[in-house]
């Protein structure tokens, strides 16, 4: 694979480098507003992953990998199901059923439910983001 799909094009490299943080910021917005407005973990994960794919296309694969290292990706890939399952077990420990979010635990039930739903969405977003980036890197080659 060549260093970059667009060679040494200054405009493409600069625009990609400037736009990538805003894409990630928008992804975080979609993630954190998943319980207020349309959005959620799956969409936010794909949006954030697309910023790394954009960097790989414009700056080259090594430079994109430099910004999202393997040692960070590895725990992020598996943390989503882990967060989801542990929240489900927490609901059992709080006295409810598996994944029954609305348990009165320090706060009123619907507040606890909203917090736990947001936590689950964050876990989904982390896994989807890391997994899509990893799949892209694996398919793109060295």
């Amino acid at each position, binding site marked *: 694979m060549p260093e970059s799909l667009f060679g040494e094009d200054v405009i493409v490299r600069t625009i990609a480098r400037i736009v990538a943080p805003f894409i990630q910021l928008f992804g975080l917005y979609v993630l954190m507003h998943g319980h207020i407005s349309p959005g959620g973990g799956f969409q936010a994960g794909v949006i954030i992953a697309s910023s790394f794919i954009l960097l790989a296309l414009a700056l080259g694969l090594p430079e994109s990998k430099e910004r999202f290292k393997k040692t960070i990706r590895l725990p992020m890939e598996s943390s989503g199901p882990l967060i989801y399952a542990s929240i*489900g077990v927490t609901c059992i420990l709080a006295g409810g059923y598996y994944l029954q979010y609305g348990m009165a635990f320090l706060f009123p039930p619907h507040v606890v439910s909203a917090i736990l739903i947001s936590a689950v969405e964050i876990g989904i977003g982390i896994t989807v983001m890391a997994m899509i980036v990893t799949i892209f890197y*694996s398919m793109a080659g060295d």
Partner: protein
Amino acid sequence: MKVIPSMLILLVGVMLAVAVTGMPEFGDPNAPANTHVVPYYKEHCLEETGVTEIVTAIVVSYRGYDTFGEVTVIFTAGTGVIALLGRK
């Protein structure tokens, strides 16, 4: 011998095309999809889950087991790709 499969495909196609005319109108409030559990979600979503976005409430809370499976599917798909192509 290709006549029989062609006739079969044509027959199924005609049956499906006829069945389309029996489908409810788009956005019909009396359609079965809008009268079964959707009214319950609309009324009890906020008080039961504390979430204003009804899609998120259904996906993560009411259908939580299904979404758990979806996350596991994504994890498994990525693991399969890594196993086949190698981690780069």
